[in-house]
């Protein structure tokens, strides 16, 4: 792995000797904790998967550097599902049956995650879902909002990238700060985008807003002018773009090129490092509903999320050192993934040789996570096995400077 390069020659030599002498091959007193990680590092959502992986591996590294968990090294088995259901399911089963991991995390593509959640449940392997659609925690056929605590999988937990929270934050911001009455909506035709669309349709009236146009686009579309033209023809005060992929940034770019001057609000993926690196210069003036780690001046963060600041600083430092770029919320997210896992393992203190029992213990610990403080999420795992993620509204200023918009 990348960090090997970082090790000094001496350490490396010792490690080699260790490898030769001991079968287990680490400096750790205890047998390692083997955990599975699968995600899409290629395919249309690849950029997110890789960013998540970077954060996740950073976290794992720090944990191991600090002597692991109660003397157990954290070993990660890592696969790419290439955003393909069949490949995802196979990878998931391989982790459970062949690699015999204690728990699994990853997968931000809904299609894949939805297919894997029941497998985790059936084979009693704790699964910490990320990204994806919220539905993965809920038992098949029991999908409605709010998820019913009695109808969620026992073994599946998830970070709550809660579209509802985001949408509501956007509404509030649009109304109060921008004085918006009528808004136009654009979303990507992915499970993620479609879910958000449903939530939007269900909630905008309550927020006292009017919907004047509703458009969508495919993830590999590169020309949005048709959709934007339709919007332009309508009467609206602001556009809300809801997308998890770069195409969303293209919508904004092309909207401005088409001379749409009204305020435009988008969701956190637009400030993902790869998007900013490429399209940042075109995103000036975009309002984004982001997560704590994306706020440049952490002192401006609301009181309730202040505890996260030190962790966020740690991620920023780590990512800058390891990958030398600005840490975005996805890195932080992955980093939290590692820390959630570690936290659960620490409290469960399972014996990796007794697989069944260990998995059950970890599940218990994971679901009863309390007062978790991460760089991305914080709080308790709820009755619906979800962990809340706070959001903040920012505005992209000149030179990709972020300004707190609230």
């Amino acid at each position, binding site marked *: 792995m990348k960090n090997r390069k970082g090790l000094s020659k001496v350490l490396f030599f010792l490690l080699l000797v260790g490898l030769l002498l001991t079968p287990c091959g680490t400096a750790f007193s205890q047998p390692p904790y083997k955990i599975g990680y699968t995600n899409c*590092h*290629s*395919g*249309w959502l*690849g*950029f997110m*998967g*890789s960013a998540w992986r970077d954060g996740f591996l950073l976290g794992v590294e720090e944990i191991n550097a600090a002597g692991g968990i109660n003397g157990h090294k954290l070993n990660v088995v890592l696969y790419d599902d290439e955003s393909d259901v069949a490949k995802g399911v196979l990878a998931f089963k391989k982790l459970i049956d062949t690699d015999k991991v204690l728990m699994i995390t990853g997968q931000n593509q809904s299609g894949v995650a939805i297919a894997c959640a029941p497998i985790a449940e059936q084979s009693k392997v704790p699964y910490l879902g990320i990204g994806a659609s919220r539905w993965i925690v809920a038992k098949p056929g029991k999908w409605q909002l709010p998820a019913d605590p009695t109808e969620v999988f026992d073994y599946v937990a998830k970070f709550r990238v809660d579209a509802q929270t985001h949408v509501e934050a956007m509404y509030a911001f649009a109304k109060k700060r921008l004085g918006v009455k009528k808004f136009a909506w654009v979303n990507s*035709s992915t499970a993620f985008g479609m879910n958000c669309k449903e939530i939007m349709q269900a909630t905008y009236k309550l927020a006292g807003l009017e919907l004047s146009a509703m*458009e*969508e*686009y*495919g993830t*590999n*579309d*590169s*020309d949005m*002018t*048709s*959709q934007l*033209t*339709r919007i*332009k*023809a309508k009467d609206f005060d602001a556009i809300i773009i809801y997308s998890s992929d*770069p195409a969303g940034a*293209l919508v904004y770019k*092309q909207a401005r*090129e*088409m*001379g749409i001057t009204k305020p435009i609000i988008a969701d956190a993926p637009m400030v993902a490092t*790869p998007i900013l*690196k*490429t*399209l940042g210069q075109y995103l000036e003036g975009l309002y984004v509903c982001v997560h704590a780690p994306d706020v440049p001046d952490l002192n401006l963060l609301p009181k309730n999320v202040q505890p996260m600041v030190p962790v966020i600083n740690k991620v920023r430092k780590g990512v800058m050192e390891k990958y030398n770029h600005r840490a975005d919320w996805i890195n932080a997210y992955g980093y939290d993934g590692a820390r959630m896992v570690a936290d659960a393992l620490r409290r469960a203190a399972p014996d990796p040789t007794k697989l069944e029992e260990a998995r059950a213990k970890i599940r218990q610990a994971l679901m009863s996570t309390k007062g978790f403080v991460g760089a991305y999420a914080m709080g308790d795992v709820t009755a619906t096995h979800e962990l809340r993620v706070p959001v903040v509204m920012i505005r992209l200023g000149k030179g990709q400077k972020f300004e707190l918009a609230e």
Partner: protein
Amino acid sequence: MSMYDQLLQFLIAGISIGSIYAVMGLGFMIVYSVTRVMNFAQGEFAMLGGMLSTVFYAKGLPLSFSILCAVLITTAFGMFLHRAVIYPIRTAPVFTLVLVTFGASIAIRGISLIIWGTDFRILPPFSKLGAIHLAQAVINIQALWVIGTTLLMAIVLFLFFEYTVPGKAFRASSINALGASLMGIKTERMGSIAFGLAAGLGALAGAVVTPMMTTSSEIGLGLAIKGFIAAIIGGLNRIEGIIVGGLTLGILEAFGAGLIHSGFKDVIPLLIFLVVLNFRRGGLLGDAEAGKI
């Protein structure tokens, strides 16, 4: 914004995206006419063109020079691809060859992912002035660049085929490989030239659209499919046919997305073509021969 302006806007969108499909289609045609292979790696050429340009540009080379390098490298690569992968099994069943090109496409994507990862990249617009306004409709200058480049390529190709010696030799070997070889034309070299030419065109197109639409390791296959459709619709044997094929595809997509539903963007043109193909077996402009493998 009036209905008329909307339609105008859809038309502009359709033409600019359609001209990319057209170039892809031309790539398919050139390779097919000599090697009788449908080269699904065509889209990867566009990907390479875009990615390489961004790489060189990031290295600090001037934009035009970066694109030139990208095009040249991709051209060379296209020739290599033919020599190393296609030519050795030219006698194999057509479908085997087509699948080999699929393999090549996958491999190239893999290489690109290894070198450049999943990030997508962009180039600055070629000219500073932002956009032209036609009534309410807006034309992105870069779109004009794209359309212009496509037309230029088409014209150059046409002149090449009609008036240059290699071009004529090229045509000869596309009409009748055996006859051409009797005339002392090396069909092998012709094949390489075809691949090189197709790769170069693809790369240039890939580079020109990047400022508008960004590029990434993943864009290849999608473009290839559109180009394939454009080529078939255009009839696989006439430059103007392919151009019309590509533009039609793009325009129908834009209008489909604009007038019906953006979710059905990909479907509407195909449904129309399914109907058209039943009346014009040779595609929109081609003759029936094009239909035969």
